[in-house]
């Protein structure tokens, strides 16, 4: 292990992988509940995609090509879901469960310095669900948009839909604007702490940067709360 690239970061690697895998285990359970439905939770799919993407990148950095390759196939299936080219099906969820378990085993094997399992069956299973044709119209899982050009970052279509749905349900939609400064940051008020605070008060649908009238950076948070909730 000592000769592996970035071997001095292996403890960090194992710790971060465990965090990602814990979130993946929770996320796959949530995804299982939506298997076969017309609308998929884009936020959940995006989060799973990013976690497998991170696992792939980290595994590659420390030279664990088997973990990297497995994460790549898991990421590929999530990308297909994200792009509406695949549905969340019981077979797909099963492949994610099997793939996540295999990921745990591979990483544990590296941590213990033991031989890693044969991944060919699970890789084949993942490729199968990624390539499986879908029946009927594509599911309404909007792409993780990379945004059009422009000075500010726009709301994604699924975010716009979510805000519209909240308003239609009688819930309150708040726009909270925050202009960062050195002074506020020194007092502990920054985009991260404000985001955490707002998430305690309601459902934070989006947080976007734009250029304010004065030419500086401003952040706009879109928060949904219950009708009776006080202003954030």
């Amino acid at each position, binding site marked *: 292990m000592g000769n592996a*690239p*970035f071997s*001095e*970061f292996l403890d*960090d*690697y194992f*710790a*971060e992988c465990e965090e990602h895998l814990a979130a993946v285990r929770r996320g796959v359970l949530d995804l299982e509940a939506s298997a076969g439905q017309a609308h998929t939770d884009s936020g959940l799919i995006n*989060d799973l*995609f*990013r976690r497998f*993407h*991170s696992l*792939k*990148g*980290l595994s*590659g*950095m420390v*030279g664990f090509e088997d973990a990297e390759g497995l994460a790549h196939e898991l990421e590929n299936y999530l990308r297909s879901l994200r792009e509406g080219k695949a549905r969340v099906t019981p077979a797909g969820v099963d492949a994610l469960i099997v793939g996540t378990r295999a990921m745990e085993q591979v990483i544990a094997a590296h941590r213990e310095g033991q031989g890693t399992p044969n991944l060919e069956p699970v890789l084949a299973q993942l490729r199968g669900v990624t390539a499986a044709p879908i029946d009927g119209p594509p599911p309404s899982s909007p792409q*993780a*948009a*990379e*945004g059009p*050009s*422009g*000075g*500010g*970052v726009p709301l994604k279509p699924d975010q716009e839909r979510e805000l519209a749905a909240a308003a239609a349900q009688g819930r309150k939609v708040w726009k909270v604007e925050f202009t*960062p*400064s*050195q002074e506020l*940051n020194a007092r502990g008020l*920054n*985009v*991260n702490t404000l*985001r955490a605070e707002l998430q305690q008060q309601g459902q934070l649908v989006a*947080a*976007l*940067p734009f*250029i304010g009238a004065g*030419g*500086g*950076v401003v*952040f706009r948070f879109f928060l949904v709360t219950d009708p009776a909730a006080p202003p954030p």
Partner: protein
Amino acid sequence: MKRVLVADDSPTLRRMVVASLSSLPDVTFTEASSGLEAIERLSLEPVDLIVLDLNMPDVHGMEVLRFVRSHKAFATVPVLILTTRGDEESRSAALEEGANAYCTKPFKPALLLQHVRGLLGME
């Protein structure tokens, strides 16, 4: 003293990048774990180079790049994209949006260091 902003949602990856660049003289590092945080850091202090991941939560790296290039205050800050996406389409898109360099993960520390030296004018 030059400041390098390392934006990646992985704390381990950020540490690897900083470690790879730690031999650079007179350079300090600031880190961001998301696109929003990266933009906030830019607004709070001058930055001489951004090492930018693409797949980050809240705001995607490409959106950060477009935002940076559209704002007068940051438009000329060099941006090095560091991503697992090695396809030519992604590379071309990033360079067209104004990235100065595009490196893929896993990266060789010496190659990253060489790119950064160049972008900081330290060659």
